[in-house]
């Protein structure tokens, strides 16, 4: 390699390496080290697995962890089921201006912050809210109905808030499937269902995987939606992390929680990639 090229390579590598090492790699290693420290006196620490033992022995922590994982997976599946027909409609059923208009309309709600979207659902669902009043008006309910502060409201909020991240990759991959291929499927005697199963879904797989990964990540790491829409009983794992860090100031246990969340999300993302034979570069890049 010529010297000029070497200098160029060095110059371009520097910001990348600084970013990845100082803001990603070292902080995570450091968080891991902190999570291995056990407080044994004032300002005295020793290395041990005590924080992880606390995590596994305290039912509330473990229960919240599993609950968060299961509900995130459910939210991801529901988002996929709702988004797939919509994406297919946008990608294949309509053309031209209507297509771009519908696609843009899918994007619009996500230009405003998650806080605003969650606030909207609070206004709709709460006891004095729109739905409650509507039900009373129609005569389906005798008094105010509280629809906020339960797991259903959390699920609704999660599905709503991550919809975009499912629709965009799905529309992109479905659009790249030529109409002729679908027609050929019908010509060869396929029914609607078999065409969907044998042609459309396999083709859309990269989009499905990348959408699912992002939606799952967003649900798992969400703090706002569970806090605002969930009730006293519906704890989310991120709320435990927040309370250890900010309220109780127990950073050692909080770091261990953070690390567990990281392991869970990495394991599920990795599993999803392996299961479908995709790679991170292909689905994200």
């Amino acid at each position, binding site marked *: 390699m010529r010297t000029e*090229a070497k200098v160029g*390579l060095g*110059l*371009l590598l520097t*910001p*990348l390496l600084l*970013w990845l090492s100082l*803001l*990603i*790699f070292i*902080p*995570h290693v*450091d*968080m891991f080290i*902190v999570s291995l420290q056990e407080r044994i006196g004032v300002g005295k620490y020793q290395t041990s697995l005590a924080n992880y033992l606390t995590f596994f022995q305290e039912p509330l922590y473990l229960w919240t962890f599993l609950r968060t994982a299961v509900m995130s997976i459910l939210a991801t599946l529901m988002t996929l089921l*709702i988004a797939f*027909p*919509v994406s297919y*409609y946008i990608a294949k*059923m309509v053309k031209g201006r209507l297509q771009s208009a519908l696609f843009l*309309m*899918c*994007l*619009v709600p996500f*230009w*405003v*912050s*998650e*806080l*605003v*979207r969650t*606030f*909207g659902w*609070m*206004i*709709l669902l709460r006891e*004095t*809210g729109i739905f409650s*009043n509507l039900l009373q008006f129609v005569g389906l309910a005798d008094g105010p109905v509280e629809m906020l502060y339960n797991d259903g409201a959390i699920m609704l909020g999660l599905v709503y808030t991550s919809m975009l991240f499912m629709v965009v990759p799905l529309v992109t991959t479905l659009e790249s499937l030529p*109409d002729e291929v*679908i*027609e050929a499927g*019908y010509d060869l005697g396929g029914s*609607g269902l078999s065409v969907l199963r044998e042609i459309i879904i396999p083709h859309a797989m990269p989009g499905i995987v990348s959408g699912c*990964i*992002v939606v799952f*990540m967003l649900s798992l*790491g*969400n*703090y706002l939606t569970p806090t605002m829409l969930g009730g006293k009983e519906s704890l989310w794992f991120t709320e435990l992390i927040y309370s250890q*860090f900010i309220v109780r100031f127990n950073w050692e246990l909080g*770091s261990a929680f*953070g690390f567990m*969340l*990281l392991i869970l999300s*990495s394991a599920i993302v990795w599993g999803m990639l392996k299961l479908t034979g995709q790679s*991170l*570069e292909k689905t*994200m*890049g």
Partner: protein
Amino acid sequence: MIPSIPQSRFLTTAYAAYIVVFFVFLALPLLVVAGFAFNDSQFPSLPWEGFTWNWFFGDERPMIGVFHERSILRAIGTSILVAVLVSALAVAVGLSNAFLFNRYKFRGQGILYVLMLLPLVIPGIVLGISILVFSSRVANGLWDGYRIDIEALRPGLLLVILGQFSFITTIATLVIGARLQKFDRTLEEAALNLGAGRLVAIRTITLPYLAPAMVGAFVVSFLMSFENFNTTLMLVGSDAPLTIAMFDRLKEGSTPLLNAVSLLLMLGSSCLALIMIFFQKK
């Protein structure tokens, strides 16, 4: 199902109806938020007490509008400052990364590319606490060892900026990289043949070509920073950006003031979206 293959009328109608229901579902929360910004009441809920502009322009209690509410205005200012700095940094580093992955072949490039993507699959709250833990330990170390107190390493705007930058850069890199991939390199070679130096060729040929992607990356970064909640929540100090300030108010109970702020946010981001579409068309 595809338009060129005839289907039963019932199926196509049901499908179209589903799409309509979906878009109502998407629009409903936003319409409700926007509507109640004009409710002449202390609560953003029914009953409807009449139309008012007071939640925007009102200047006496109990209805102080957005434009007279100091704390909200300051939070908007903080958010804009953070978002501009984060986007500028992210676009600069993203541009450098795009060139690195597009123009050079070196050992470990594949691994580095995967590492570059990782911030997208780390939960935001974990990014936040890891940076919080690391910077606090550095600050404590400096204080214990050398009695130097660096305020910037404590929770505050610098950490918020770094925390948001740490994952937004990946997105900026992907947006700019995608366009650089489509660039016809013979154009650059032509410039070199005509006697331009390497840097001149890049400045006059490649960068103008990348400009729409850079504007796009800037706008996307700006919005992601402005809206970011999870990472910011862990790193925020005394001056809170807008999302955190609104969250604190929402926890105490909401007045239509928050609806008014939200409506302004919707208008602001729609304008940004239009700017971006305009630049993309060119």
